[in-house]
Structure formats: C-alpha cells, structure tokens
C-alpha cells in the first residue's frame, strides 16, 4: 500500500510536470546558459579546467535543482490540494517519498541532458571507463540534493517568505554533499580514485533520508 501510494504520488507529480513543463524548461534553460556563460569566462583548453570542472558542474546542478525543488510542494498550494492530500489515507512519509522520487527523476533528467553540454564545452575527458563512477556520483549527489530540497520545500510551503527562506535554509544544508560530489567528480574525471568523499556521501544520504522521513510528518501536520 505504501509503495503504491508512493508510486501514485510520484506519477502524479511527473505527469503534472510533463503537462506544464514549467520547472523543466526553467531548469534546463538555466543550466545550459550558466554552463555556456562560464565556458566563455574560462579558457576550456587549459589544464586548470580539470580542477574545477567538478565544482562548476555541481554548482550548476544545485542552482537548477532549486528551481525544481521549490515547486515540489508549492504546486500543491493552488486549490488547497495539499490539504486534500494530507487528509487522504496517504501518510506523510509516502507523500514525501513519492515527491522525492519525482524530484529525483526530474533533476537527474536535467543533469543528464546538460552533461553532454558540459563535456563538449569544457573538453572534459569523459570516457567509457568513467561512465560508471560518474553515474554513481550523480545518483548519490542528486539524491542528497533531492532529500534536503523536498523536506525543506515541505517546511517552507506555508511560510510567508517562502521564496526567500527556501534557498537560505537549503543551500547551507546541501554544502557538505555538494563538496563531496564535487571532489568525487573531479577525481573521476581525472581518473583518480574517488576517495573518502564517496563513503561520506553515502553516509550523508542515509542519515538525511532517515531524518527527513522522521520529520516530514511533524513538518506537514505537527
């Protein structure tokens, strides 16, 4: 029952998003523009680009992610749909998980589409040997962003200053995960071993997922 509800919620969010494409369009456009702009700012042929490639990529993903994650619970405000969902038999945990999965899918899609842009314009050496590790860090890093963003989307949904509070609260929380993802990515692209960052990111994901599931009911219902 829980899984069915999670699936229903996730499908609904994705279905709605496919219809309106609001967050998707904004996210994709933003990501590609930022990547292009920075590619003008830095000389893509230099060796230094390798060093901050990971950083740049994840900064872009984090900002684009905010566009997706903010809408997550905000889309329920219209017509008081959030009340209808909470009053239904769906538990807060199922609601959260469904939305998190939908957000993850969306965010991952944005990242996947913009990755080739990144590889092209920054002359990044992304060979077949790196696909696996790259995929792994993208999954782990994106999940961290998703969990935090979705939880805080729920928390700020009814606040007066939602547009301001969400980024203020969310970005600092994301920083440890972002830094790990950045260093792992830079290592992967330089064909170095991933390092401690990988274990840290896994631990971070697990802990924050558990905390989010514990707290989401307090946040939504109290």
């Amino acid at each position, binding site marked *: *029952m829980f899984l*069915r*509800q999670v699936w*229903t*919620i996730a499908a*609904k969010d994705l*279905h*709605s998003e496919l*219809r*309106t494409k609001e967050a998707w369009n904004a996210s994709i456009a933003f990501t590609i523009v930022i990547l292009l702009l920075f590619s003008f700012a830095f000389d893509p042929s230099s060796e230094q680009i390798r060093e901050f490639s990971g950083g740049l990529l994840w900064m872009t993903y984090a900002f684009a992610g905010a566009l997706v994650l903010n809408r997550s619970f905000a889309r329920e405000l*219209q*017509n*008081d*749909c959030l*009340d*209808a*969902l*909470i*009053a*239904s*038999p*769906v538990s807060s945990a199922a609601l959260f998980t469904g939305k998190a999965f939908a957000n993850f899918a969306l965010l991952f899609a944005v990242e996947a589409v913009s990755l080739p842009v990144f590889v092209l314009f920054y002359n990044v050496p992304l060979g077949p040997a790196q696909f696996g590790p790259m995929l792994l860090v993208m999954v782990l890093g994106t999940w961290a962003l998703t969990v935090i963003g979705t939880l805080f989307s729920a928390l700020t949904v009814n606040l007066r200053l939602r547009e301001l509070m969400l980024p203020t609260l969310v970005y600092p929380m994301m920083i440890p995960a972002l830094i790990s993802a950045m260093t792992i990515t830079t290592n992967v692209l330089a064909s170095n071993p991933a390092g401690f960052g990988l274990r840290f990111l896994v631990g971070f994901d697990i802990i924050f997922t558990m905390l989010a599931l514990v707290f989401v009911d307090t946040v939504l*219902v*109290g």
Partner: protein
Amino acid sequence: MNALEIDGVWKYYGDFPALRDVGLGIAPGSALALLGRNGAGKTTLLRIIAGLSRPSRGTIRTQGSIGALGHGIGVYDELTAVENLTLFGRLHGLPDPRKRAEEMLVRVGLGRVRDGLAREFSRGMRQRLAVGRAFLHDPEVLLLDEPFTALDDRAIAVLQSMIQEMRDKGRTIVMSTHQLREALELASHVALLQRGQIVHAGERTQQMLDDTGWLYRTYGDN
C-alpha cells in the same frame, strides 16, 4: 460504538486556547450541525478531525474512512476531471479507481466533460468536482466545512442530494455552517461552539427549526 469520538481536545496557538476541552460523541448515522460564529473554532476542530492538524491535548477516534470538503477545492488544475478523481481513487486504495471516477463524474453532472482540464471548468463545475472528490471513496464519516458557501445552484443541488444519499445509507455527517436553515433541516443533532468551547450539544429540536436564532440567543453573545 460512536462513529466519531472527540475526547478532551484542546488546541493552543502559543498559549492561546482556540479549542478548550472539546468533547463530542457522534453516533453512526447521525448528522451533526456544528454551529458558531466566526472564530469560534469550527474550522479548527474540523481540520483536527480530518487529520490536517494535531490537537495540543486530547484524542480523536473515528470508525471508518473520512471524506472532507473544506474551503479549498482540492483538485489539480493541470489534470483532467477523470484524472483527478482517478488519482484520489488510487490514493484511497479503491479496487477500480478509473471506473469509480467515471461513475462519480456522471453522478455530479460532469460526465460529458470528463476529459476536460480542471483549469478550464467554470467555478460551479470545479465545485462539483470537489464534491465528487470528497464522496469518491464512499466514506463512513463526512466532514463538511461550510459547504454551501459560494456554491452555485446546480452545485448546491448536487451536494444536497449526495448528502441525502449518505444519510439514507446510514453514514455520519459533521457539517459546520452559517446557513442555519439548510443545516438545521438536514441535521439530527446540533452542537454550538463558542470561543473554543462546546456550550450546547444535543438533538435538533423542532424549536430550533421554528426559531433559528433561539440557540444563539439562549447561549448569549459573550
């Protein structure tokens, strides 16, 4: 066994008690009209029963499923009428959500626009869709928060007939309202809420029907 058992419920906003030691036992098959002026706590109480808010103290026990119709419409603009109801059908775990959704749409007079986007509906049509959502899973207990406010004639007719259907099936109804006349006609019991306290609870009498202001006058206006 009461359909709805409310025991010692308090709700605090800060140190201010919006609900004070509210206790009600609502027998199955009865229809309770919850009366009170603005700010008396009717919506607060209904929200707590619906599970949208936690009481600061006290317990609520319900027998069976709950359907809630509040101030908000609770349907998604970007989905069609049938998609909306199918979604809620799935969330409630109905065996054949799609079929049930289509039946309900016919019942509320939206059968011909089942594939229309909720966004494109007129106000009255959206309200009827909301009624369909609330009654979709054939709930044991129906919570209606000022349901007749701002409904057009057709929507009122649909709602009244569906409430009557529920009554004939022996379901339980709790309705808060300002429309004393309509409420008292439908109600078997009456409860008056004043500043968060139940000052009167009992059967609906003929006197109340004949003289709708009697209740308020008897319990003063302090």
